[in-house]
C-alpha cells in the first residue's frame, strides 16, 4: 500500500533532477576567462587597500591597548616592596596586630605597656597583682620590678595565661578556646 507513494516520490525526484539538469545554461562569452583573470590579478583600488590597512592598524592598536590595560591593572594590584603589607596574609584580618604584639612581647617584654597586653593587670612592686582576679595573687610570687620573660612563663597563671594563649591562637588564625580556669 505504501509502495505506490514511494515509487511516485522516486519518480518525481528523478524528474526534478532531470529537469534541473536540462535547464538551459547560457554559454559563457569568449572573453569570460580573460575578464575574470584580469579582474582578479589587477590590484585593488587604493581606497580599498587603504581601508584594509587602516582596519589592520586599528585592530592591532585595540589589542595592544587592552593588553596594556590588563598589565597596568595587574602591576597596580601588586604590593610595593617597602609596604608593611608585604607578606601578610589577608585571610586573617586580626592577625596583624596580634603578631606585632607577640613579637614585642617575645623580643622586648619590658616595653610592653600597650596593645594586647597593655590591658592586662600590672604587677605591683610587692610581688602581687594590683588588679585582676585573685588567681595570680599568690604569696609565693615575690619577683619584683617590671615583667620579665621568666615571670611570663613561670608564674603566669589563670587569667593572664589564658589571655596570652588567646593572643597566640588569634595570631595563628585559630579560634580561641573558651576561658577555662
Amino acid at each position, binding site marked *: 500500500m505504501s509502495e505506490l507513494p514511494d515509487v*511516485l*516520490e522516486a519518480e*518525481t*525526484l528523478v*524528474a*526534478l*533532477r*532531470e*529537469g*534541473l*539538469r*536540462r*535547464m*538551459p*545554461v*547560457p554559454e*559563457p*562569452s569568449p572573453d*569570460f*576567462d580573460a*575578464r*575574470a*583573470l584580469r*579582474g*582578479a*590579478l589587477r590590484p*585593488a583600488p587604493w581606497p580599498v587597500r587603504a581601508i584594509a590597512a587602516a582596519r589592520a592598524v586599528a585592530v592591532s592598536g585595540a589589542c595592544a591597548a587592552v593588553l596594556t590595560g590588563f598589565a597596568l591593572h595587574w602591576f597596580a594590584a601588586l604590593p610595593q616592596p617597602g609596604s608593611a603589607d608585604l607578606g601578610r596574609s589577608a585571610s586573617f584580618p586580626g592577625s596583624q596586630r596580634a603578631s606585632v604584639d607577640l613579637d614585642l612581647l617575645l623580643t622586648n617584654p619590658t616595653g610592653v605597656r600597650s596593645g594586647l597586653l597593655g590591658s592586662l593587670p600590672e604587677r605591683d612592686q610587692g610581688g602581687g597583682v594590683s588588679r585582676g582576679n585573685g588567681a595570680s595573687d599568690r604569696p609565693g610570687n615575690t619577683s619584683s620590678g617590671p615583667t620579665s620573660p621568666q615571670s611570663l612563663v613561670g608564674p603566669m597563671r589563670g587569667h593572664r595565661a589564658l589571655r596570652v594563649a588567646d593572643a597566640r591562637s588569634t595570631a595563628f588564625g585559630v579560634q580561641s578556646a573558651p576561658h577555662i580556669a
Partner: protein
Amino acid sequence: MAAHVATCEGLPGAGGAQQTDACELATVARAARGDPEACSWLLSRYRGRVLRLATMILRSADEAEDAAQESFIRAFRGLSSFRGPLGFYTWLCRITVRTCLDHQRKRRPPRLEVRAPHAGDAEDAAVSRLVVQALLDQLSAPVRAALVLREVDGLEYQEIARVVGVPVGTVRSRLHSARARFRELYLDAMQEADRV
C-alpha cells in the same frame, strides 16, 4: 608548472578523489600566490557549474554571467582566506550565492524567462523542464540555490547549510517543501498532459 596543471587536468577521471583534492589544493595554493595558470585551471574546471548556479538563482542569463565573473574575481582575491576543510567548490559556491543575492537585491523587479520546450525533448522531459521552471520561479533565491546544490551538484546537507548560511535542519525542511511542491506541480502537469 604547466605540466602540473596538465596533470591535474587528467586527474578527475583517472585518479581517486583524494588525489584530485590534493592536486586541487596545490593548485589553489598557487592561485593564491597569483599564478595565472592555476587561476585558469580553476576557471575552466568550475566555470560551467558556477554559471549554472548563478543562472538558477538569478533566472537571467546576462545577470548570471556577470555574477559568475564577479564570483570568480572575489574568490581569487580572497584565496588567502580559504581554508582546506571546507572544499574549494563549497567555498566558491558560498561566494557565488552571496554575489547572486547581492545582484538580486540591487536589481529591480525579477525578470522571469519562460522558455518553450526544445524540439528534441521527449514529452516527459519537456514537462519536467517546464515544471522545474515554474517551481524555480516560486522559490526564493536561497532555496533555489540549495535545490541546485543538492539535486545537481550532489552536495551534502551540511555543506549546503554552510553555503547558504542557515542551519542544517532548515535546509532539510526547505528542500523537503520544495520537493513536495514540485511533486504537486508535476502531477498536475502530467494529468493535464494526459487530458490533452
